[in-house]
C-alpha cells in the first residue's frame, strides 16, 4: 500500500495536496482498497462552500456507501469531471487521476490538524 510522503491525510482516509492556497483532495490507497470496486462517485459543484469535517461527496463500491469528508474549509474551485463517468479510477490511481476536488482554503490554520504520511500509516496499521 502506498502513502506518498508529500501528502497530508485525515483519519477518515482522505489525502490532501497543498499548493499555495489551493488544496487537492482525494481518498487514500487504503480507503480505495477497503471499499473495493468503486462504481459511483458524487462530487460537489464548483462554487460550493465546504466546511471542515462535513461530507462533500459520496463514494460507492458494489457493497458499500461511504461519505467523503472535507478535510479543510474552503470554496470548491475545480472538480474532477471525468471521475463520475470512470469511478474505477479511484481504485486504479487514487493519488493522481483519481483526485476528486480542488478547494481554495478559507482557513489555512486547519492544515496543522492534518496527519503526515507516517502518522497516517501508523493509524491504518491499527485498522
Amino acid at each position: 500500500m502506498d502513502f506518498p510522503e508529500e501528502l497530508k491525510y485525515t483519519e477518515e482516509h482522505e489525502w490532501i495536496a497543498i499548493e499555495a492556497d489551493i488544496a487537492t483532495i482525494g481518498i487514500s490507497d487504503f480507503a480505495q482498497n477497503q471499499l473495493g470496486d468503486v462504481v459511483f462517485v458524487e462530487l460537489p459543484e464548483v462554487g460550493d462552500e465546504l466546511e471542515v469535517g462535513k461530507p462533500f461527496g459520496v463514494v460507492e463500491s458494489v457493497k458499500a456507501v461511504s461519505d467523503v469528508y472535507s478535510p479543510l474549509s474552503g470554496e470548491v474551485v475545480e472538480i474532477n469531471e471525468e471521475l463520475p463517468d470512470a469511478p474505477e479510477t479511484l481504485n486504479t490511481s487514487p493519488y493522481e487521476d483519481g483526485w476528486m476536488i480542488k478547494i481554495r482554503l478559507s482557513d489555512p490554520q486547519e492544515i496543522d490538524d492534518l496527519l503526515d504520511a507516517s502518522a497516517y500509516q501508523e493509524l491504518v496499521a491499527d485498522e
Partner: protein
Amino acid sequence: MKKTPLNAVHRQLKARMVDFGGWDMPVQYSGVIAEHQAVRTAAGLFDVSHMGEIEVSGRSAQEFLQYVTTNDLTKLTDGQVQYSALCYEHGGVVDDLTLYRFTGERFMLCVNAANISNDLAWLLSLTSSYNDTDLMITDSSDTYGLLALQGPQAQPILAPLTSVNLDELSYYHFTAATVAGIDLLISRTGYTGEDGFELYCPADSTVMLWQALMQAGSPLGLMPCGLGARDTLRLEKGYALYGHEISAEILPLEARLGWITKLDKGEFVGRAALHKARELGIPRQLIGLKLTVPGVPRQGYPVLCDGREVGFVTSGTSSPTLKQGIALALVDSQSAATGKSWQIEIRRSAKDAETVSLPFV
C-alpha cells in the same frame, strides 16, 4: 463467530472477511467485479458451507414435507432437487430452501445459515400431529462442507475429477459420487444463473476438495469467489434472497414465488392464508427496476411511481454486467400494473428508473 472448515484457507488467500449472520465469511478475494465476471465467463468457486442441512426421514417423511413446504413434493423422483419454502400459518415465509429426495422416506433440506435453528424448531413444532415414531428430523449442518462450483467451465473442471458422467446429471438433480477421492453428493444446482454444481462433502474433507478443484480449475480460469459476487450474480438473475425479498412479512405470492407455491396441491401450512390473499388480490408485487442515471440502489430505498411513494427496494446493486444500478423492489400491485414513470430515491434525491422484465441479465 462461527467458522466454516475453510476459514484458514480464506485467510491465507487474503480474503476480506465479514460477519455474515454470525459466520466469519469471505466477501471478496480479488474483487467483486472480477469474481463476478469469472463466473459469467469461466468459473468461480464459493464456500457456502455455512448453509444448513436438515435431514428428514421416516415412513411419513414425504407426507410431512408435503404438509410443511409450499411446492408439490409428489412430483419429485429419487435423485431430484426442488426449490421450495416453509411458510407460517399467516402466509409469510419462514425460509426458502432446496429439497433433496434420496428416497420417498429420506430427504434433505438445504436452508439459509441464519435460519438453521429457527427452521429446525419450526419443523419440530409441526411434527406433533404425526404419530410416526419413525419420523426423524436431524440437523446435520456441522457434518457437511458445501462448495459451489459455478460457471460455463464448471463441468470441464469437475469432469476429470470424478467417474460420474456429468452429461447424464440434469439441472436440479443430484447423485452420490467420488470427487478427487472424496465421497460426496454432486448437485447440479446453484444461485448464479450459470451452469454449475454444488458439492456436499464431509466437513473434514472440505479443504482437500477446495484444493483439488482450485488446482484443476485454475488453468481454466477458476477463481475463488466471495459473498459479494454471489449477491451480484443472483441479483442480475432476479433470484430472491432471504432477508430481502423473502421474510415473514412478505407473502411468497408477492415475491415472484408463485411458481413454488402450489395452492392446489392439498392442505399445507400457510395455504389458507395464501389462498385468501389470492382471492382478495395480492397487495404488492416484486418488480425489476433499472436506473437510467448513475447511482446504486440499496435495500430500503423508497420507490416512487408517477411522483408518489409506492414501495421500497428489497435488493439493489451496481450490475457488473450492465454497469448500471439495478434493483428488485416491492411495490403496490396497482402501480406495478399501470405505473408509467419510475424513480428510486437515493439520499433524498429521486433518480429516474425504468421497469424491466426479469432477469436483468
